[in-house]
């Protein structure tokens, strides 16, 4: 959304601004429109009221950078300007990210920008996606997400997330669902389609059927913490990348989660910093470690990233994915982790950054 608003704001000067809006970016939009639109002077409505209407409409159509669509605002906007096509035309001329007068000039129209239509499609679809995903069986959800990531060559974050944060039987269930849906095994497709350095780690993670008991060996944890440290130290000079290191992949892909947490704890004790910090050069590896160590902390980070200004399409879609998939498992822990990390209640952050039915759906899913 940001890109569409700054397009209009790029040649703004500090002209008169509309009444203070909670979205500072909007101010940039208002100024150039007034300068550019000569018809504005002929309108009977005073510029400030016109600006209000435009602001409402812009918010209704695009959520002003938040997620989802403000359906109520949109409905009331649609009821406006009946039999006043010239006002609608003015709106089109003023909303430069959505419409392009130059592109359509030959035909005498302000043509819709295709990219913006895609953006709207995504925003309108958030509520539908949340509802459908909520209703689906968790295993089918995970299988569909994994398939989507593999076949659209998206970053493998979702694969790591599903493989590392689900219980062993749930991951197995997701693999079964994947077979039922796509007639291939998940590991087959991961091994075939992921051709970069992360391949062996990803295949290992999605194939894992970890022991789920609490039995932990401190000696083994110490031994493996040292092995991990040795791998990290030798990584810069090694022939292959750290993420391809056999020892690292072996430990992360086969040990039980309690055992791994002990290993990570001992690593921290031995080196004074968490393992994740030493994995900054390998995002896939770092994410795996975060997911295995503390899913709620990892998820609260993903959620926060969805709200940031430069969130891309995958980062925003992650909000629905995380909230819907964790509603039945560790939502309370995620709320605690979020509050601890960002000093705000999760529900408040969601309410602030989302709109319309999508917002209500998410708040309902999060619960009190």
């Amino acid at each position, binding site marked *: 959304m940001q890109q569409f608003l700054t397009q209009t704001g790029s040649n703004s000067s500090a002209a008169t601004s509309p009444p203070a809006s909670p979205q500072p970016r909007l101010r940039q939009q208002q100024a150039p429109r007034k300068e550019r639109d000569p018809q504005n002077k002929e309108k009977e409505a005073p510029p400030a009221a016109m600006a209000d209407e435009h602001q409402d409409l812009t918010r209704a159509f695009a959520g002003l950078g938040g997620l989802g669509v403000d359906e109520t605002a949109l409905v009331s906007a649609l009821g406006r300007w009946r039999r006043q096509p010239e006002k609608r035309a003015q709106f089109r001329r003023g909303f430069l990210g959505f419409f392009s007068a130059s592109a359509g000039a030959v035909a005498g129209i302000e043509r819709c920008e295709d990219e913006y239509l895609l953006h709207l499609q995504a925003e309108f679809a958030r509520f539908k996606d949340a509802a459908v995903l909520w209703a689906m069986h968790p295993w089918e959800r995970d299988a569909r997400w994994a398939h989507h990531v593999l076949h659209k060559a998206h970053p493998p974050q979702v694969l790591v997330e599903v493989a590392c944060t689900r219980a062993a039987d749930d991951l197995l269930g997701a693999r079964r669902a994947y077979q039922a849906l796509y*007639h291939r095994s998940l*590991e087959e497709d991961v091994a075939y389609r992921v051709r970069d350095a992360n391949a062996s780690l990803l295949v290992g993670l999605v*194939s*894992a*059927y970890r022991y789920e008991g609490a039995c932990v060996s401190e000696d083994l944890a110490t031994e493996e913490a040292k092995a991990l440290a040795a791998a990290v130290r030798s990584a810069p000079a090694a022939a292959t990348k750290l993420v391809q290191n*056999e020892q690292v992949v*072996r430990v992360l892909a*086969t*040990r039980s989660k309690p055992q791994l947490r002990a290993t990570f704890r001992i690593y921290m004790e031995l080196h004074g910093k968490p393992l994740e910090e030493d994995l900054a050069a390998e995002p896939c590896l770092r994410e795996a470690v975060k997911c295995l160590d503390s899913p709620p902390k990892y998820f609260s980070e993903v959620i926060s990233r969805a709200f940031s200004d430069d969130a891309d399409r995958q980062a925003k879609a992650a909000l629905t994915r995380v909230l819907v998939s964790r509603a039945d498992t560790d939502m309370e822990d995620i709320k605690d982790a979020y509050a601890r990390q960002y000093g705000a209640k999760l529900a408040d952050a969601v309410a602030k950054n989302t709109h319309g039915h999508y917002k209500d759906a998410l708040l309902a899913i999060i619960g009190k």
Partner: protein
Amino acid sequence: MATITVPRVVPSPAEDAAALLKAFQGWGTDEQAVISILAHRDATQRKQIALEYEHKYSESLIQRLQSELSGDFERAVYHWMFDPAERQAVMANAATECIQEEYPVIVEVACTNSSAELVAVKKAYHALYRRSLEEDVAARATGNLRTLLLALVSTYRYDGDDNVDMELARSEAKIVHEAVRRAAAAGGHEELIRVVGTRSKAQLRATFGCFKDEHRGSVTKALPRGDDPTGYPRALRTAVRCVADPSKYFAKVLRNATRESAGTDEDSLTRVVVMHAEKDDMGAICAAFQKRASCTLEQAIAKETSGDYRSFLLALLGS
């Protein structure tokens, strides 16, 4: 077709437990009585007998059997008492203890079970050893052998045969050929391990078929035979044979185990007979054995083994 025979009217677990106790009492053990009961009960019945015995006589039936019996007979009965999933978990665990020699057992368990059966084995392993099979295999093996074994053990193959892609089979037959041409030490085996370790069995068989069409020889014959100390080439060959034709593979193991010249390999003999006597494929294994050997499996066992061990194996085979 399974070969064990269960009487039409089965005594209750209590009766069986009492009969077993009687067999243990007094001087020595009545091994024939033990065989006549346990070799003719299926997995569920054996479990009920064990529970009943423990409940009534306050000791573990398996432990009593271990103390009363001995030698190959005892090992065979011990493994027989478990249900199929646990048995394979126990065998796999024993193999991880000396993985450099016993890795074929792990390959067998990983490649000759259906995906669901393999999951049951892994679950049984969790319950018995409080670790996962993958952990133990990964920790004890090294190099290419580890990569291969871990892939085989972790995979959850698609079990259907409705999605075989012949284009893919042809392209993967090329990959197999390339890897086979180069020695394992030269690298290039990741792709081969990927194919063998993740594709469905139907897809793999199609790939092997394309290999045979292209290169006028089966994959198994093309795979290097050398005495590689790491064991990787042999493990690879075992995996390919297990996927391509499990009955033929097991028949070969049995033929090697009952070879006159080399002395009897009771461990392998026990393993195969005890593992398969109550599975559907025993009939096919016996048929494959007879095709290649000059006698039936029963005849070979009768000739090469003796005593209670022989009686027990023959009872499992339905003689």
